[in-house]
């Protein structure tokens, strides 16, 4: 009987390391194929942060308390915000997979069990890298310039993607905890106050002292400040510990978030079989 049945499958091979790589790549390709099928949604996803950048840069014309060129201040802030808001995309995708039962199908197959999460990570990071490239190009087009070397530029991009990677795990965990589209909507609204409670758009110098302190400790502020430094763009200033150690915090915050949320997300995933 086994000559006919199950003949096509390498029995029990899902745990071999090679399948971790192959299956993760298959899962990544699944996302790429989805983008190819939904070009409009992909373009909307890329255009939205560009629109925000242009709105803040030209229409609202804020820059409360910013010393120097506001657009040079704004572009690194919006790059940071774009990476942080990647949380929504991750959450939405994971919630949809859970809701449709497609995750159950994956779990009932002899594939590598980690590939679902690894494939999600690679796909989301690729998407964010493309999004970041578009934002940098638009920033350049509206006159934003970096003044440090290529190494600093890469360092800044690295910090931005590190923040995105941290948000990826926060997003996976929240999706597994909440698991319902309504809660994704709640998060999609709540990211805005959290986003504005950073120095991405306005300077904490323009805020009441207590609010400014919260803003300076926001992980987004740390990344935005560190990235402005690396690009040699005007910064938010401030002489608090958080403001003067932004580079350290821009690494420490995401690492801390990953250290907390990645194990929690993996545990949640394993506990699906509880």
């Amino acid at each position, binding site marked *: 009987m086994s000559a006919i*049945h199950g003949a096509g499958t390498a029995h029990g091979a899902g745990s071999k390391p090679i399948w971790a790589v192959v299956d993760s790549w298959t899962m990544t390709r699944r996302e790429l*194929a989805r983008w190819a099928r939904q070009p409009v949604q992909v373009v909307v996803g890329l255009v939205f942060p560009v629109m925000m950048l242009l709105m803040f840069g030209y229409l609202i014309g804020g820059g409360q308390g910013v010393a120097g060129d506001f657009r040079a201040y704004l572009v690194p802030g919006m790059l940071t915000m774009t990476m942080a808001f990647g949380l929504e995309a991750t959450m939405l995708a994971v919630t949809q997979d859970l809701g449709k*039962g*497609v995750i159950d199908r994956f779990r009932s197959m002899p594939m590598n069990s980690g590939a679902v999460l690894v494939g999600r990570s690679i796909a989301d990071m690729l998407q964010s890298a493309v999004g970041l490239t578009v934002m940098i190009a638009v920033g350049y087009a509206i006159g934003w310039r970096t003044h440090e070397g290529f190494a600093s530029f890469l360092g800044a991009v690295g910090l931005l993607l590190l923040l995105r990677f941290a948000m990826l795990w926060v997003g996976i965990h929240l999706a597994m905890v909440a698991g319902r589209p309504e809660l994704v909507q709640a998060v999609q609204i709540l990211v805005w106050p959290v986003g504005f409670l950073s120095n991405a758009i306005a300077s904490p110098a323009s805020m009441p002292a207590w609010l400014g302190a919260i803003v300076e400790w926001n992980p987004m502020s740390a990344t935005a400040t560190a990235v402005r430094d690396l690009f040699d763009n005007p910064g938010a200033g401030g002489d608090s510990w958080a403001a003067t150690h932004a580079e350290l915090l821009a690494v420490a915050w995401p690492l801390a978030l990953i250290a907390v949320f990645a194990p929690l997300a993996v545990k949640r995933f394993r506990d699906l079989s509880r």
Partner: protein
Amino acid sequence: MADHDPAIVVEGLRKRYGDKQALDGLDLTVRAGTVQGILGPNGAGKTTAVRIMSTLLRPEEGRVEVAGIDVRTRADEVRSRIGLLGQNAAVDEELGGRQNLEMFGRLHHLGARRARTRADELLARFGLADTGDKAVGRYSGGMRRRLDLAASLISRPQVLFLDEPTTGLDPRGRAEVWNAVRSLVGGGTTVLLTTQYLEEADQLADRIAVINHGRVVAEGTPDELKSETGGDRIDVVLRDAGRLAHAASLLPGDVVVDEDRRMVGATITDRMAALTETVRVLEAAGIEAEDIVMRRPTLDEVFMHLTKEDAV
């Protein structure tokens, strides 16, 4: 694995969710190459049992072997021998049917080329060859379910789990899925099918286990279950609904009255004697009958009988 070995063995299976004992000592043996129906009201534990047998949930207590392999200790080996059709269509709506099947084939480690040929084979077999490139989101309910079924067959599974495969489908979609399931039987695949539709179990299953409160309350072929529940029945449709009560008092056995259909029904033992006797007593009482039918009990009656303590 020899053909006479059971494809599924479940012994003393227990699973609790918080306060609720979802499975409470479930026992079940399914012979290889047969279709086993699992019938039960909502919340009886059908889905929990399927999720444990298909490695999605860990059992708390009890032994579960699928294709001769313990699901708890060798889940990966079980996974390469089973197919699962869950209650939701577990396919990517955004992708095409062919893309879905190819992806699942790769994840079954068939390799790119064989994943592709297998996808084409299955699309052709389930009448989806022409629509293989269309996004699944634009499929009809029946088409989506057939694709889902195709996806669960990628690895030519020894054991196929179908959890309420036709819930939410219109009659045409249901017939499509039934035909697809029938075409599997005979190929040697063992099918375990849960359903709320008694007709579905009657149509497809070789044997049926009725479960309630997490355990099996009756098991057998559809015919065995029907005869266990009290043999044949006679139904008499009257011309005048006003005479129903009178007619009911004249019939022997376990009598039911259906006012809407102007019908009285009773359990009988000897078909010919019951027919003559019924005609005679009705005539003597001057009650006009429009129709008299003798029949086996339906599975619905069996089901109501077996799970009736719920209604009280």
